[in-house]
């Protein structure tokens, strides 16, 4: 029998690239002089698994290189060699070479054999040179494996089978037993709990995630749940005592690995052999990945689409159900209401699958900052916070480049050279901070530095030179800062390798706007600058207000709506230059008649007969004149550009309950269009 290895190649590459990313991150965390043994272990394991994989597939060049790397790591692990800055640098270079090797393999391109040989030589030289400095007796600095570590915290996922109650088990009793030996915090999962009418009281539909804190080991937890063996699913996971984010262990991209429960009879833990066979490691990896699967993004998107279709069908049925009369009507409506709830839950679950932590983007920065700082002779400390903040994959993919640009900008223009910092009474090392958090329905990402801040005088000079403002204009400070977002602006005195590449802040702002977000800038001379990016959590769904104009239905995103009102004739006036305006809370707002803009025959022509939706975009407000307000609902955004194209003032389309298409309005676009026409 021949096995087609090709199909495993893709998985090998994926895993190897992830593994390299882990290795890189871990290397950057290594504290020179006092390295954490566990970190070195991690790096070793990663290198080892790449070696195993590449040998399996006959990639001898990669396997050979990794072997040299592994030998060096083993020396570090065994304490016969110490972690120095030079060694770290060597290892980082090895990561680069490995990455290049893998890329070349993947693309079927020739490899840079000289570069590989050079570095392999360096690795071997480093290894050979250790003996002089090495202690006579290797220090057994190995870290005991997970079982005996007695971590301070465990996470227990406890999902009873339906028949748990009738088999004489009671989760309450189990949790109480656990609470007797440790601190337990139970988080309930009642997603599968049916409506009361449909509930068989003898079936168990609840599940829990238990956070267990205390000096106990996995066997003790296991023992308690032995009672329910065969009646439940149990996943035990140790939670590292990380002060920042105790929720989830940082794992490489795509899937969150949930380690399987340790074997029921915990054997005496034995330290891993330094160079065991790859088969054994594979088995261990398989075990570790038990709780997660790798799914292609297309499959998730397909699932999203199917769910979108289901939501539409369900809405259609609900509308139909509302019209039905007779004895069966009530049970039908109850069933439909239940269906609607289930659909919403399903939709949310699928959306959650697409949510990924922003650490995917953040993870590239430690290396980048490290390299840039060296290149520029600056000392920079990078602080990352809120890496676990989750956002939709599509947003995540598009936010990377703008963030890279901002961070580069901070390093290049913001942080001063150490001498200048000392002269200014600051610590020689500058700080660049990347912070993410959820705020309302948005994700907020801040990029800040404690450098010199933006030089308003220089910006002004540059803007005048470039003709962005008139020679005698004297804009206010806030407006000066705004200038850097204008196309064609760059203050770099000389074009460096870094920021001054023609892509400027205008591109950053445009990218952020395309995502439906905004970027703000605050700066204090001598103290630093802060960019704040606010983004929607997802691009796939929007909360919308349905409005009717004639026979058409449009959707106004709720985030754009300030209020809706019926105008009295006294509020309305006509200003010849601006067209119709109305008085609203002390200001005059222009009116956009949707029917005339979109060429639709309206039911109401006189302004006091319809309604005005006060909407805001780009900091300006307008009144959108519509016939009537319909319901509010969450709608799935569909692109018009796939098969048609962009329409001014329209952000996209969605499919309503009856299968009809409704356009989603782009309020900022409408406002820009309206002011363009008014000016013309």
């Amino acid at each position: 029998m021949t096995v087609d290895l090709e199909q495993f190649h893709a998985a090998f590459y994926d895993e190897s690239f992830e593994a390299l990313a882990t290795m890189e991150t871990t290397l950057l965390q290594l504290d020179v002089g006092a390295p954490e043994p566990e970190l070195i272990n991690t790096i070793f394991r990663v290198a080892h698994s790449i070696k195993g994989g590449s040998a399996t597939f006959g990639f001898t060049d990669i396997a050979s290189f990794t072997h040299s790397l592994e030998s060096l790591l083993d020396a570090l692990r065994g304490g016969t060699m110490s972690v120095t800055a030079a060694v770290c640098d060597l290892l980082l270079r090895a990561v680069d070479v490995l990455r290049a090797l893998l890329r070349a393999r993947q693309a079927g391109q020739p490899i840079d054999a000289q570069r590989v040989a050079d570095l392999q030589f360096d690795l071997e030289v480093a290894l050979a040179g250790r003996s002089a400095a090495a202690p006579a007796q290797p220090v057994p600095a190995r870290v005991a494996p997970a079982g005996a570590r007695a971590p301070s915290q465990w996470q227990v996922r406890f999902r009873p089978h339906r028949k748990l109650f009738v088999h004489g088990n009671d989760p309450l009793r189990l949790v109480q037993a656990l609470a007797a030996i440790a601190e337990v915090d139970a988080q309930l999962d009642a997603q599968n709990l049916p409506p009361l009418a449909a509930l068989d009281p003898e079936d168990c539909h609840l599940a829990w995630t238990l956070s267990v804190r205390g000096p106990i080991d996995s066997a003790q937890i296991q023992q308690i749940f032995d009672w329910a063996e065969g009646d439940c699913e149990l996943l035990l996971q140790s939670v590292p005592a990380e002060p920042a984010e105790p929720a989830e262990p940082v794992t490489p991209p795509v899937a969150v690995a949930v380690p399987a429960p340790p074997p029921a009879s915990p054997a005496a833990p034995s330290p891993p052999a330094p160079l065991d066979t790859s088969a054994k490691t594979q088995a261990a990896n398989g075990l570790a990945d038990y709780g997660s699967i790798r799914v292609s993004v297309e499959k998730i998107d397909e699932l999203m689409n199917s769910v979108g279709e289901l939501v539409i069908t369900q809405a259609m049925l609900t509308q139909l159900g509302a019209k039905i009369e007779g004895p069966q009507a009530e049970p039908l409506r109850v069933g439909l209401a239940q269906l609607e709830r289930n659909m919403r839950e399903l939709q949310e679950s699928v959306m959650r699958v697409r949510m990924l932590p922003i650490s995917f983007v953040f993870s590239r920065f430690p290396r980048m900052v490290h390299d840039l700082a060296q290149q520029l002779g600056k000392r920079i400390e990078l602080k990352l916070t809120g890496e676990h903040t989750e956002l939709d994959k599509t947003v995540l993919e598009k936010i990377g480049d703008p963030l890279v640009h901002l961070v580069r900008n901070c390093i290049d223009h913001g942080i001063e050279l150490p001498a200048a910092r000392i002269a200014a009474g600051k610590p020689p090392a500058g700080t660049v901070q990347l912070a993410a958090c959820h705020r309302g329905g948005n994700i907020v990402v801040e990029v800040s530095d404690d450098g010199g801040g933006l030089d308003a005088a220089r910006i002004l000079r540059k803007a005048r030179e470039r003709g962005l403002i008139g020679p005698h204009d004297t804009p206010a400070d806030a407006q000066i800062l705004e200038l850097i977002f204008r196309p064609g602006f760059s203050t770099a005195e000389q074009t460096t390798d870094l920021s001054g590449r023609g892509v400027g802040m205008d591109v950053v702002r445009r990218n952020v706007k395309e995502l439906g977000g905004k970027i703000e800038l605050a700066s204090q001379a001598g103290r630093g600058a802060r960019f704040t990016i606010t983004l929607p959590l997802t691009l796939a769904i929007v909360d919308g207000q349905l409005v009717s104009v004639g026979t058409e239905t449009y959707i106004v995103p709720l985030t754009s709506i300030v209020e809706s009102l019926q105008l009295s004739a006294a509020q309305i006036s006509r200003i010849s230059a601006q067209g119709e305006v109305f008085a609203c809370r002390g200001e005059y707002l222009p009116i956009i008649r949707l029917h005339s803009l979109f060429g639709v025959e309206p039911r109401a022509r006189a302004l006091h007969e319809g309604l005005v939706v006060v909407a805001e975009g780009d900091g300006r407000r307008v009144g959108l004149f519509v016939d009537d307000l319909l319901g509010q609902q969450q709608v799935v955004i569909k692109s018009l550009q796939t098969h048609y194209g962009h329409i001014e003032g329209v952000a996209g389309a969605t499919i309503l309950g009856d299968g009809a298409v409704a356009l989603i309005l782009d309020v900022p676009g409408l406002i820009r269009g309206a002011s363009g026409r008014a000016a013309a």
Partner: protein
Amino acid sequence: MKNRSRSPSARATARRRSPAPPDRVQLRACCTLAEAGELKAALVALTPCAGPVTLAAGAVERIDTAALQVLAAFVRDRRLAGRSVHWDSPSTTLIAAARRLGLSTLLQLEGAGS
């Protein structure tokens, strides 16, 4: 295309013809799997009641997950239907059990007894 919300008046009238539904259930001292069926029946009888309903839970001395699950389904269904549930002096046994299983929020028992 018109997504106007449907008025519930038709259903409301239909209901008014039947005798007034009960609006209070007295929980027994022992609320376990054996009594869960009976508890469910009592709570189902409360379902048509549009106004606030009361769960008198002062007598509960023993309770298990099965009974808590029935209560949870009831309280949640009420909440989803926009109707309220009032707890009348829930016993400490009940409150502690709900808290232990992370059910306090779903049961709307938060802040009770403290």
